[in-house]
């Protein structure tokens, strides 16, 4: 609970209906899409403008409470969970597209705009927003900025950071900072780039400028069916080595195929196959058939049993169905699911997959793999039932071993889901004390009082004890910080 005076103050700033303090109502904000972590916030505030966010931040900080920004709560790392009674600042009402500037292929929007809806709005001009996380029908662009989200098509098009050209950010001290902005060169540190993927620890983005792309004229989608997953991996490598650049390459493995085919989402993949590889090319119609033919050739040469191709949107959706529904389908063969997000060098994929399968066997667990094969971004899903204490323990061990395996292969602990609460204790697997110290330091540059999303990304035990070098009293006061109201 937050003090009554603060409640009144917040209601004055954002309106009474924008401040939620009823403990029962706050229950629904206790977790994001990773329900393993649950903490009820002290309050939820739903501002509509940069100015309301700024005044909300000032008021909450003045009362000594921490702040957690939240988009649609679709994150998979516990990043939007409010620890220690923090006040959640939700962006659900900041959902306006402020401008679509078609001649310059850019848009300016509020952080609560839903990813897929930006593309829908831009479609009128023949444009779209390229990053397409699997949750794109629900997740917000503000959340994508916080997590630097990827998606199946980032193989060709790159992740969120490539498309965000400018940000307006409210910092913990209530100052409003603008970084970047298309059509303007701002020599100096790439503050917008640094802010991207900072998981709400640096401030709240209240206005986002993004670049848009012309909608590709044509699309070709292929589905290769393989008896051995290594063969699918080799097909991916051969396609890349040949200089082809598909928009997406996604593999789902045998256990996942069977899960999908056993569910109501059956997509018509053969259940005795060990891998299905979805390949998509897009661009001018002229070159697509040629590219698709070459990719088909590489699949068959690598040992594909068959390669299906889609010519229209309906067929295309059918080929994608098994991939898109995999997550939901797995939710239906086991009550609980642990999704990992490691990225490994693409060439190590066959060895890693074998290693993961061995770990699964050793702990007697079903591990089903769905991954962005083109980027080496794996999503091993460990299926379990949390009511089984013994199994729960085995899941923890297996999960740790899989993570270590990926790191040893030159990989990283998270490719697109973010660190959040879930993986912060794995950070020392990839960073030494100096790197972690530096990250603590950078965090304090933006938020000296550690009020923005505390307890996320960096493990507390690595927090350096020495004073923050960035906290120089002479420059401690940010220029542009408005006087307290």
């Amino acid at each position, binding site marked *: 609970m937050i003090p009554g005076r603060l409640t009144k103050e917040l209601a004055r700033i954002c309106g009474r*209906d924008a401040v*939620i303090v*009823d403990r*029962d*109502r706050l*229950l*629904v*904000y*206790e*977790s*994001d*899409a*990773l*329900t393993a972590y649950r903490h009820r916030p002290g309050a*939820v505030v*739903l501002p509509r403008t940069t100015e309301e966010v700024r005044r909300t931040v000032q008021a909450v900080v003045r009362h000594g409470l921490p702040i957690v920004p939240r988009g*649609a*709560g*679709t994150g998979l790392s516990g990043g939007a969970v409010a620890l220690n009674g923090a006040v959640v600042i*939700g962006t*659900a*009402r900041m*959902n306006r597209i402020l401008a679509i500037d078609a001649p310059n292929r850019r848009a300016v929007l509020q952080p*609560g705009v*839903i990813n897929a*809806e930006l593309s829908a709005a831009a479609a009128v001009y023949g444009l779209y927003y390229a990053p397409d996380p699997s*949750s794109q*029908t*629900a*997740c917000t662009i503000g959340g994508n900025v916080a997590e630097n989200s990827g998606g199946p098509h980032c193989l060709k098009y790159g992740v969120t950071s490539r498309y965000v050209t400018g940000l307006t950010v409210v910092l913990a001290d209530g100052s409003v900072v603008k970084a970047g902005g298309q059509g303007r060169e701002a020599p100096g540190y790439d503050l917008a780039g640094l802010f991207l993927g900072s998981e709400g620890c640096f401030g709240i983005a209240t206005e986002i400028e993004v670049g848009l792309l012309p909608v590709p004229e044509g699309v070709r989608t292929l589905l290769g069916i393989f008896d051995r997953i290594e063969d699918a991996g080799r097909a991916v490598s051969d396609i890349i080595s040949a200089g082809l650049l598909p928009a997406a390459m996604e593999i789902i493995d045998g256990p996942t195929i069977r899960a999908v085919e056993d569910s*109501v989402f059956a997509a018509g993949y053969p259940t005795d196959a060990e891998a299905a590889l979805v390949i998509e090319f897009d661009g001018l119609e002229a070159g697509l058939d040629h590219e698709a033919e070459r990719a088909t050739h590489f699949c068959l040469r690598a040992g594909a049993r068959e390669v299906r191709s889609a010519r229209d949107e309906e067929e295309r959706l059918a080929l994608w169905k098994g991939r898109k*529904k995999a*997550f*939901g*389908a797995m*939710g*239906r*063969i*086991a*009550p609980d*699911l642990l999704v990992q997000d490691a990225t490994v060098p693409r060439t190590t994929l066959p060895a890693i997959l074998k290693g993961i399968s061995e770990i699964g066997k050793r702990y007697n667990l079903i591990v089903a793999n769905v991954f962005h094969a083109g980027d080496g971004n794996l999503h091993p899903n460990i299926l379990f039932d949390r009511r089984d204490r013994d199994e729960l323990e085995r899941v923890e061990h297996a999960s740790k071993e899989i993570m270590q395996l990926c790191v040893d292969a030159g990989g990283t602990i998270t490719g697109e889901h973010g660190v959040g609460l879930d993986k912060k204790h794995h950070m020392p697997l990839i960073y030494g004390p100096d790197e972690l110290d530096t990250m603590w330091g950078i965090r304090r540059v933006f938020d000296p009082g550690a009020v923005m999303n505390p307890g996320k990304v960096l493990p507390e035990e690595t927090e350096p004890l020495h004073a923050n070098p960035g906290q120089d009293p002479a420059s401690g006061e940010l220029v542009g910080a408005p006087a307290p109201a």
Partner: protein
Amino acid sequence: MSAAADSLAHAVKEQEEGLLNCVHCGFCLPACPTYRRLGDEADSPRGRLHLMRAVVEGRLDPGSEAFQTHIGRCLGCRACEPVCPSGVEYGNLLELARHVGGEARRLSLLTRLLLRVFGTEWLARPAMFAGRAARATGIPALVTRLLAGSAPPRGPRLGLAMLAASGPMRGLRAAPAGSGSPRPGAAARATVGLLTGCVQAGLFSRVNEATARVLEANGYQIVPVDAQGCCGALHAHAGDLEAARAMARRNVEAFEAAGVDYLAMNASGCGAAMAEYGSLLSHDPAMRDRAAAIAGRVRDVSELLAACGPLRGSAVRMKATWDAPCHLVHAQRVSSPPQTVLDAVPELEVLPLAGATECCGGAGIYGLTHPHLGGWIGGDKVRSVVESGADILVTGNPGCMMQIGAGLRLAGSGVPVLHLVELLDESYRRAGLYHGESDHGNGSRP
């Protein structure tokens, strides 16, 4: 724990065991009309499911303000179901949650009164008669016209406007009852029992008549089912499950006795409810299988027509736009058959409607119980109809017809609202498919 809470716990557990459990992914949030407008996750499907689970886990009192408010605020449009990757049967859980909530705290007086009227024949008949009589005086239409555009539609004004909107489109000539003739040369198709319903029978008898005519024209045989009654949908939605089950039993028996191949529905709210009789009566061993069998024969009238490749009528040169009723598109997942039926009307120009699959805010008695939010949602629908540039709005559920029609009238728009079968019926009438009726569409306004 009360019996009602037990049944919610049972249902939540059953869905978990059936692995239809909510994995909290949030894909439902943008599909939800209340979340989109209010931005509070407690007003989203995921949030409501979380509250239900909290009640089951004993962490939340079903009588609490939070549970009552947010479960009560749900439109029950079920737009969340098609987008759920885990297949959670939300509508089902919502009814149980309302049942639990209703035990913990009595329904509002208005809700109870309305349900009572719909569910009780001797009350419903005079009420509908009074409604028809009032409508016939023209007073509701006049008052609505005078008040158009003055303030957000709510309360008595909305009620009057809805009543006015339930009337037939001006100029639309009603064909004589029972004048449908079988399609020439068409082999007799399946036998069909028509759910006459309470609101349809009361205020929309013309829609029931048109339904019978267009089905017969396409070769279906209509079998009268006299013992039928209200489908119980409104009661189930409000959480009065006992009343709903009683009505369901009565209808199962009535349609069984009639021995029809299909149950034809022209109110998608009723259709969705009857299609789920199996789960509604799943705890009644004597009725379970019989209810499921009847539920399996439920078809929207558009499905029956689309299935036979409907006969084409004569030209209706108008611009129409289609609004998909929630209980048709989300609950029953019927989306293309209405398009097929519209295509059977020559020279009808069908314009796209922005947000066609979003709830109109009618949601049974929602517009009356939640006037502000219902008016907000309804207002958005009206704006989108006006912006579509259509001359007529076509839909498939009497509740939606009244809600949107009332909104259009109050907004000062002259766009009339038609049931899909009314439009097809008019096209058939112009084609001379009915006895003694012929007026080969000469392009004049109907």
